[in-house]
């Protein structure tokens, strides 16, 4: 009987099978994954593929149209826009990834603990409610304006408003999971609390956290660009997509491409990450898929 109950090995989800099924069932996801891969490679190999130094000022070359030497033209300081866009991807991806990792780790800890201890829960969830009531952009620009605009401050400023969302998600998973017989069994045989959390509760949160993590990543890339665009982000010499656009703002009517190219890269990056998140959700949570794609 026990042997019969084992799942059919051909149905078991392996990472490779998951990937293959994703690509076959949804060509849009494949395109999104390729786009994201290209952007990541562009950012990593920016020093090799950039035709010019992204920070090199050349006043004689200012606001030049696209040419063989400057494929996307130059900005108001004569810097090569294409090189700046290549380098700009580095900041966006770093912030996206960093914010996803930090908010998931911090949210996981807060969620696990508040899901398990009622008194922590009462306090923590009030704090989370308060943080969630503050619009993310305002919170982020306030933090950056006070602490100075370094990469680390921007990362912290973007991560703080994301933490409550992750913590609430983990907490809701833990609240359901802790009623399961296997958790009660673990408690009754005296398993230590950290072990219960790590071995029995944490695995339940992995799937929703992967999905939430991709959404946090997309939203962090967006918020970083908005901060830079508003002039409250990473300092203007460092090329980021938002900074290129912020500087292009004054020359919008003369040279709109200063806004459109980084805007396009930004949109493609965020769109790809969001689509991959949707695909991960569909793959990891069959119930959601049923609901989204019912015949």
């Amino acid at each position, binding site marked *: 009987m026990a042997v019969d109950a084992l799942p059919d090995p051909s149905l078991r989800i392996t990472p490779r099978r998951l990937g293959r099924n994703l690509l076959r069932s949804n060509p849009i996801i494949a395109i999104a994954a390729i786009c994201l891969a290209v952007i990541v490679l562009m950012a990593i190999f920016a020093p090799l593929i950039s035709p010019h130094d992204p920070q090199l000022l050349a006043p004689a070359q200012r606001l030049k149209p696209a040419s063989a030497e400057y494929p996307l033209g130059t900005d108001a300081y004569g810097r090569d826009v294409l090189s700046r866009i290549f380098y700009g991807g580095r900041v966006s991806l770093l912030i996206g990834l960093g914010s996803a990792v930090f908010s998931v780790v911090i949210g996981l800890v807060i969620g696990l603990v508040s899901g398990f201890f009622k008194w922590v829960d009462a306090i923590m969830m009030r704090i989370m409610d308060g943080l969630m009531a503050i619009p993310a952009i305002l*919170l982020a620009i306030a933090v950056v304006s006070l602490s100075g605009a370094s990469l680390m401050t921007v990362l912290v400023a973007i991560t703080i408003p994301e933490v409550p969302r992750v913590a609430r998600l983990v907490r809701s998973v833990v609240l359901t999971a802790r009623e399961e017989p296997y958790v009660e069994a673990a408690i009754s045989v005296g398993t230590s609390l950290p072990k219960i959390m790590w071995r029995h509760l944490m695995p339940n949160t992995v799937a929703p956290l992967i999905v939430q993590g991709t959404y946090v990543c997309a939203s962090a890339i967006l918020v970083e660009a908005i901060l830079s665009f508003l002039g409250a982000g990473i300092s203007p010499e460092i090329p980021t997509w938002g900074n290129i656009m912020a500087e292009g703002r004054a020359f919008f009517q003369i040279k709109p491409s200063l806004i459109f190219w980084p805007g396009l890269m930004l949109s493609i990056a965020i769109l790809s990450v969001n689509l991959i998140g949707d695909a991960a959700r569909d793959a990891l949570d069959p119930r959601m898929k049923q609901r989204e794609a019912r015949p």
Partner: protein
Amino acid sequence: MLGYLIRRILAAIPVMGVVALFVFLLLRLTPGDPAAILAGDNATPEQLDRIRTSLGLNEPLYTQFFTWIGKLLHGDFGVSLISNVPVITMIGNRIEPTVAIALSTIILTVIVAVPLGVVAAWKHGTWIDRFVMALSVIGFSVPVFVIGYVLIQVFAIDLRWLPVQGYRSFARGFGPFFERIALPTLTLSFIYIALIARMTRAAMLDVLDEDYIRTARAKGIAEHGVLLRHALRNAAVPVITVIGTGFALLISGVVVTETVFNLPGIGRLTVDAVLARDYPVIQAMILLTSGIYVGVNLLIDLSYTLLDPRIRY
């Protein structure tokens, strides 16, 4: 109902308390002398002193906090460090453009997004549905300012239908006012429409599976009657909820949209305050927007009883 109302209002107090504490500690816990941070690098000792007195930074932390809260409760949000004008006056002078585009955005969104979501759910799996879903993913992904600049390029620069930037008060005639809020409204609506259309579709899909919908159809009720009277009314609660939680999105969007279109609203006021480190203004804006967010969501909770008579508090 009254009991529920009181309980909900009481529950909002700790939320706003946390917001206030956060705003208060943000300045005080930032490493370094708060007065020096606010005054910038070239400040004279007199300027530093003025900031310290103005914010009460010489007092112990808890005295500072309670004095500040006491003033807030009396409607005193402090005085701008830059212009010396009371913050509340500054906000009052700049609120019209913001309220105008926020309201027109909500109206446009509801008019466009709810029908889109209903049709997408009704024609589930067809190209209409896929189109709406694609639109909503794009709406989430394309940054507000990119949409804004594309609209300016097309409608103001290429077609010359509308002015590029700026604002004209409603008091000076509806025509010029409308011309100037049209593009900001379209820009801001994009992401909100994406959100609400998606939610309406999901809520309608859930409801359309119910037995009472099958019964209504079996009775021979016309399809629009089934959709509007039987399905949409029951799908309204989650949709309205998302309109409320999406309010935070709207506030963030306003800040960016006002920058793109050069509107003299409170979003722009906040950005200018941040760039000038005018902390009393930043502080007031965070409190104000959070307060509005909490208030809107409270109203929405209360509206459930009107929308769904089964919900009783």
